[in-house]
């Protein structure tokens, strides 16, 4: 956001200097920027923090004085807190302060979750905890969609992730219903056209795929993770080539696919115990994919691919170093070979760049 404003300010003066922009137009844009900044400022951020603190206050007050309050009154306190949250949200909404309104909705959703726990306590229900989390997630999603609150839908995604993790740990098996919850929340992000939410979706599903490797085939199915990650990368590249209308999806699909592939490859190389030859083959392939990512990022001007490539490359090299120190493989030999290979790639890249520059000049 701030980066965007800075860039825009620089562009504005250039556009004005080129005569593309009138004084009045510039003033209009500046006004809108200021009003956006006010909305995004400190107040809503503090509002969110305050709502979290207030929700904790309600929860701990009710929990601490549980036995002193008549059981009927406990329910009244919980319901009244929730309704107050929604009423405050409505008041802020009516004044156009959507950030503060979001904070109040978040408070109401938090009280809804606390109520589930406290009602369970009231009736000595030692239920299945993930069921409570799932119900809470459904409530958060409902509020998020009805009230168009991005914060509440993001909170629902967090709860869906917790739900999936709890069930997976308990069963030590894949918990497929997670995907239903994930799809519902992702659909809400799409419907609200909120891009940061889609990143949360991508992150959650990447974590699910990576976890598959640790759950399927007695916890040794990381090859599947690599395959699924590569599929995502390939489909991202296919979108780029054949569906120009969807270009906005290319970078995230490739990026999260690459992350998933790399997580699977790390587990295969360092979580399992491959033979020396297998390790060399896998490490070389991993480094090749990462170098490919850097090259792709540079040629298409996608910085995320470049940075993921660099980051992965560094992690891979460090992990290899730690693993091969003092083994038969011989750390120095491995790095010698890797160094020669990368140098060869560098030479190849230079020649390609040189040739394309030459052909451009001659054409």
């Amino acid at each position: 956001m701030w980066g965007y404003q800075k860039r825009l300010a620089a562009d504005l003066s250039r556009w004005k200097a080129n005569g593309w922009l009138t004084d009045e137009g510039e003033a209009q844009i500046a006004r809108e920027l200021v009003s956006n900044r006010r909305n995004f400022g400190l107040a809503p951020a503090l509002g969110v923090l305050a709502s979290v603190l207030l929700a904790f206050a309600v929860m701990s007050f009710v929990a601490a004085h549980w036995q002193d309050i008549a059981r009927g009154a406990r329910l009244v306190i919980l319901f009244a807190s929730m309704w107050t949250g929604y009423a405050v949200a409505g008041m802020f909404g009516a004044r156009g302060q959507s950030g503060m309104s979001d904070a109040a909705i978040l408070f109401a959703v938090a009280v809804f979750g606390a109520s589930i726990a406290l009602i369970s306590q009231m009736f000595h229900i030692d239920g299945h905890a993930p069921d409570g989390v799932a119900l809470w997630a459904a409530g958060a999603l409902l509020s998020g969609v009805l009230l168009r609150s991005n914060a509440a839908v993001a909170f629902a995604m967090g709860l869906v992730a917790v739900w999936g993790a709890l069930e997976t740990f308990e069963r030590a098996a894949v918990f497929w219903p997670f995907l239903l919850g994930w799809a519902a929340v992702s659909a809400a992000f799409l419907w609200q056209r909120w891009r940061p939410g889609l990143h949360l979706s991508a992150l959650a599903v990447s974590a699910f795929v990576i976890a598959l490797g640790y759950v399927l085939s007695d916890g040794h199915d990381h090859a599947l993770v690599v395959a699924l990650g590569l599929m995502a990368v390939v489909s991202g590249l296919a979108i780029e080539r054949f569906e120009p209308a969807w270009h906005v999806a290319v970078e995230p699909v490739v990026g999260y696919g690459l992350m998933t592939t790399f997580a699977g490859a790390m587990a295969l190389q360092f979580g399992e115990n491959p033979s020396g030859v297998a390790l060399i083959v896998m490490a070389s392939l991993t480094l090749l994919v990462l170098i490919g990512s850097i090259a792709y990022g540079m040629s298409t001007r996608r910085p995320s691919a470049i940075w993921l490539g660099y980051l992965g490359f560094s992690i891979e090299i460090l992990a290899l170093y730690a693993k091969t120190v003092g083994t038969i493989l011989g750390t120095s030999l491995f790095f010698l070979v890797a160094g020669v290979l990368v140098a060869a790639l560098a030479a190849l890249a230079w020649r390609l760049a040189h040739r394309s520059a030459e052909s451009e000049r001659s054409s």
Partner: protein
Amino acid sequence: MSNSIGGWRPGPTWRWLCVAAVIQTAVLWSIVAKRQALLRDGKEIALPVMPVDPRDLFRGDYVTLGYELTPIKSMALDGRPSFDGLSKGAIAYVTLHQSVDESWLVRSISAKFPERVDNGDIVIRGRVAYHWGTAGSSDESIDVRFGIERYFVPEGTGALLETKVRDKAIKALVAVGADGTAGIKGLLIDGQRHEDPPLF
């Protein structure tokens, strides 16, 4: 696409705020009403409890109640049944029968609600917490949680109740619904009933 939580959007309308609040209140109320109905209409049984350990970070003091019904050993049941389909986390239905001295004993366990239930028997729905031993072997046994393992008490009184539980002077009063759901009505301490009055 809006890129921020706080960017300008129309605020929530009063109508939808009311809808959200009403639906969420109704959901919470249905939990309360269902539980009330279970405690009122369910068949009551008294089960002896064993000590475990206290304190829940979020919900104040509680006593953990262990039941003598579990773990259930395959070889202790008639016909040494198999525990197929009862992996960790799965739903389990445990059928209880009352012995001559009026204590409740496990008759059978299955992954589905039993088709035929003998007169006087009770079926409790639970979830498999652990499953040990190889299938069909004599050491195969299963631990089931029924959702009645926590009893929340006023702060500070947990330790006292713990001692009573340790002395085996406590029984849990459990209501069991027609679908097998179990709920704690209260405790039977030294033969005296302690239970919360119904809400409505």
